[in-house]
């Protein structure tokens, strides 16, 4: 697989939907520790809407296609992570405007815009124990893969690994945003549910392309 086409994207969204549904209880549990416990439900809802939209919209322009999915997600689950994921897809889609197939380079650009879009919306940066701590290393891994002319499968494999490592690395961080921030030092050592959702997103991309 040298490029990702629309049908591949549909598969990817199908895969993420399943993964989020399978991990619902796990995310609920993680978000219950220092949050309101809704993350499993909202991710399930968001990506169910994403997969449904992917199956129904017509656009050949993959940029528009992804942006519309983002907009559908924003409606589906307006929680923090629901909105941030939606923002990521909208901002990531924007940089793909006009493209009908995506190279490893495009995918790297997509994830950089995705991660930067979340940072801008969330007024945050790496190191604050958020989804960004999974997504920023993801984007970097994809940029490296593109530079080294890696295949899409290998690039997304690196990216998924980077996201998983990002989740681990964020454990010792102190939460600065959202409900977890109210817990101050008590958040240190706890796994961030948003970063976890970020890694699951990458798992979906990787699983779908490596099938």
């Amino acid at each position, binding site marked *: 697989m040298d490029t990702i086409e629309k049908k591949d994207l549909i598969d990817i969204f199908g895969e993420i939907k399943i993964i989020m549904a399978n991990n619902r209880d796990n995310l609920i549990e993680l978000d219950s520790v220092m949050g309101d416990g809704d993350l499993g439900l909202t991710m399930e809802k968001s990506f169910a809407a994403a997969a449904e939209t992917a199956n129904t919209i017509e656009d050949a322009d993959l940029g528009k296609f992804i942006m519309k999915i983002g907009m559908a997600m924003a*409606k589906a689950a307006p929680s923090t992570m629901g909105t941030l994921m939606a923002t990521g897809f909208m901002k990531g889609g924007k940089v793909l405007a006009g493209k009908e197939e995506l190279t490893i380079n495009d995918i790297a650009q997509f994830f950089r815009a995705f991660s930067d879009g979340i940072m801008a919306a969330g007024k945050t940066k790496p190191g604050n124990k958020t989804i960004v701590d999974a997504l920023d290393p993801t984007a970097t891994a994809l940029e490296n893969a593109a530079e080294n002319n890696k295949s899409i499968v290998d690039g997304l494999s690196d990216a998924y690994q980077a996201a998983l490592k990002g989740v681990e690395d964020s454990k010792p961080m102190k939460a600065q945003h959202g409900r977890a921030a*109210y817990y101050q030092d008590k958040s240190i050592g706890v796994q961030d549910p948003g970063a976890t959702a970020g890694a699951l997103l990458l798992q979906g991309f990787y699983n779908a392309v490596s099938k």
Partner: protein
Amino acid sequence: MKKIMNKAENFVDEMLEGILAAHPKELKITNDDLRCIVSANKTDKKVGIATGGGSGHLPLFLGYVGDGMLDGCSVGGVFQSPSADQMLEVTKAIDSGAGVLYIYGNYGGDILNFDMATEMAEMEDIKVVSVVAGEDVASAPKGEEGKRRGVAGIFYAFKIAGAKADELASLEEVQRVAQKAADNVRTMGVALTPCIVPEVGKPSFTLDETEMEIGMGIHGEPGIRRGALQSADDIVDEMLFPILEDLPYVEGDEVSVLINGLGATPKEEMYIMYRRINQVLNERGITVFKVYIGEFATSMEMAGASISILKLDDELKTLLAKPAHTPFFEQKQL
């Protein structure tokens, strides 16, 4: 879970159906979406004021939609932000060309969605500005005011902004006074019992039969001290002293005091609290212009209360004194 409701998943929509049925002359919906509530009266050339936020806090948020206060409100699930999309629909419905002011509480999900709605509104050529209310002194230390949660004190920003907008003031002016109100109010609360999100079905935290938690948030966010239930006077002092020191409020100041019941605490207890507040303010030479005691920002059936103090100047006083009339709040000219 002892609630008078039907299916938990219909809690919010059935509540909204009831509200719309009860107040058909005052409220309506836009975009055919029950969760997009707007005032039945629209004034030409007036700045539109919108809020939005999770359900479970009545009269917050939609209860302040009405004459002299807000023009619209998007309504989220229990303790959940409404979507940017819903905020946009409300924005479109209430804009009369003079622009729209968002006033909402300082919570991550709400900020993200109102920011997104702002961008979307700009694409529709509606000018939108925001005031983010955050005044709970228990939620972040002085110097980090930007991190503070917005609680019952947001009532004052609604009231002041609404009165100013009624003068057909500009968007910038309405924003300025709303921000001034938000900047001059401080709040602290105490929780005695938890509340239950209907779809969750069990409390997100517990408090022993003899425990209270000072500084707890209206979604059960952790407070600053948990301990044995104290006397009313001691509880008031533990909340009021940090409030007074924070702004600070000093001799010669004139203020408005708001005691907000979280849901299950009766007015009898709130007035016992006010007795002590009045003593302390008298001792410190702080004058009280107007007292509000009741439920302004609740957590469904949570027991507990919060104290908010607004420091007044002539402008805020004049605006606070203006009449208002919503299905949940009425005030004649003071």
